[in-house]
């Protein structure tokens, strides 16, 4: 979707606040939200659907509220949409019985178990598919002129642009359909764009931007 989240190349956001004490969490609630996001398990919710729900946050909230706050808001929205919690329960501030089957209550995990879980959650997104890749490393490609109104991972700034296939990654889960609950795989490539192809002020630049793009975003140049 052409939403507020698609920030690459947008102007007017000003200087970067580079000061940082390198602590992972700057408020207790940030750590709580990180933990909630790691241990909450809801059947059927894909990472791409979760990302799309985050993109759908109202623009003033997306830009105006703290980062982990937007994670909490996204969690709320995915749970409510899936029928696991209700708007009435949010108003009441407590659980009201619903028809959802929550299964056995989540058990307490120790630090050791959590570290093992982190290691075990090195999730792979690739798979073998029968169709051979359409593009070869070194080949010139054009990116699609349009995105889609759903979730997509072709940023606006890289649409209708010429690039060069830099590397082939195998077939990866296609996010546009994964955000609709369908797991399909498409060949995925690292594509190199000259900065001069992307930005009017970069005419003489030798800098490059690399993006990992799925096959259906690309055509032969």
């Amino acid at each position, binding site marked *: 979707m052409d939403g507020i989240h*698609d*920030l*690459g*190349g947008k102007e007017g*956001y000003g200087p*970067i*606040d*580079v000061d940082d004490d*390198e602590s*992972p*969490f700057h408020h207790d609630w940030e750590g*709580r*939200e990180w*933990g*909630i996001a790691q*241990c*909450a*398990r*809801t059947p059927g*919710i894909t990472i791409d659907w979760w*990302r799309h*729900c985050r993109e*759908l946050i*109202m623009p003033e909230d997306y830009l105006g509220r703290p980062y*982990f*706050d937007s994670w*909490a808001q996204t*969690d*709320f929205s995915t749970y409510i*949409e899936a*029928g696991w919690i209700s*708007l009435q*329960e*949010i108003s009441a*501030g407590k*659980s009201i019985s619903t028809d959802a089957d929550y299964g056995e*209550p*989540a058990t*307490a*995990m*120790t*630090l050791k178990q*959590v570290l093992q879980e982190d*290691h075990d959650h*090195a*999730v792979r*997104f690739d798979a073998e598919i029968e169709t051979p890749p359409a593009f070869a490393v070194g080949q010139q490609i054009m990116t699609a002129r349009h995105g889609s109104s759903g979730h997509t*991972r072709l*940023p606006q*700034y890289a649409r209708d642009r010429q690039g060069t296939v830099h590397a082939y*990654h195998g077939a*990866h889960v296609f*996010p546009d359909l994964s955000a609709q609950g369908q797991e399909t795989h498409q060949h995925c490539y690292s594509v190199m764009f000259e900065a001069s192809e*992307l930005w009017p002020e*970069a005419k003489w630049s*030798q*800098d490059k931007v690399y*993006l*990992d*793009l799925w096959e259906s975003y690309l055509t032969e140049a």
Partner: protein
Amino acid sequence: MPDFDAKKVAEIHQHLHSHLPSESALRVKALETLLVDKGLVNPKTIDAWIEAYTEEIGPKRGARVVATAWCDPEYKARLLRDAPAAIDELGFLGKATAHLKVVENTDEVHNLVVCTLCSCYPFSILGIAPPWYKAAAYRSRAVRDPRGVLLEFGVDIDVDVEIHVWDSTAELRYLVLPQRPPGTEDMSEDELAALVSRNSMIGTDRELGIEIEAKG
């Protein structure tokens, strides 16, 4: 099960905009209370995740990977060829690093990593992303004005050095392998790891040096 109904989610966000408390702490508390009430999450597990990403998992892991690569050319070759397997040798494979790629800085190339569409980050080797990495200013500008961005971090890249920006919007994640500073030939792997800044592994730092401690 979700219905994957984007229109419904947009309505939910409008409702939450008006009905959730405005303070972030209270919003997260409301979420935790409901999920714990329903047995969907356990508060002790939340504690454990916070401890894991405060005490155990963080940029020290990435620094160890870099120092190992500096000291062992064979490890470096494995790291550049198959980063997930190479970091797993050190026990660091995990969340968001199954499709890790390592990009090497040279005299001719400087690498910089961003995610313009959300804030994708290689959690299991760098921990929680810094606030600036998740902010609109960095996400919008890194792909368009990388030299200006780097100047704000105090890094002036020579015009002869190409900047390669990696916009990690797919499931691949990128770790920058900074250059080993000159004059460190006699240093141990531990001493080298202490030189590797978190920002150098994202690309907002370049020349790592031996910090001269103030004499008191």
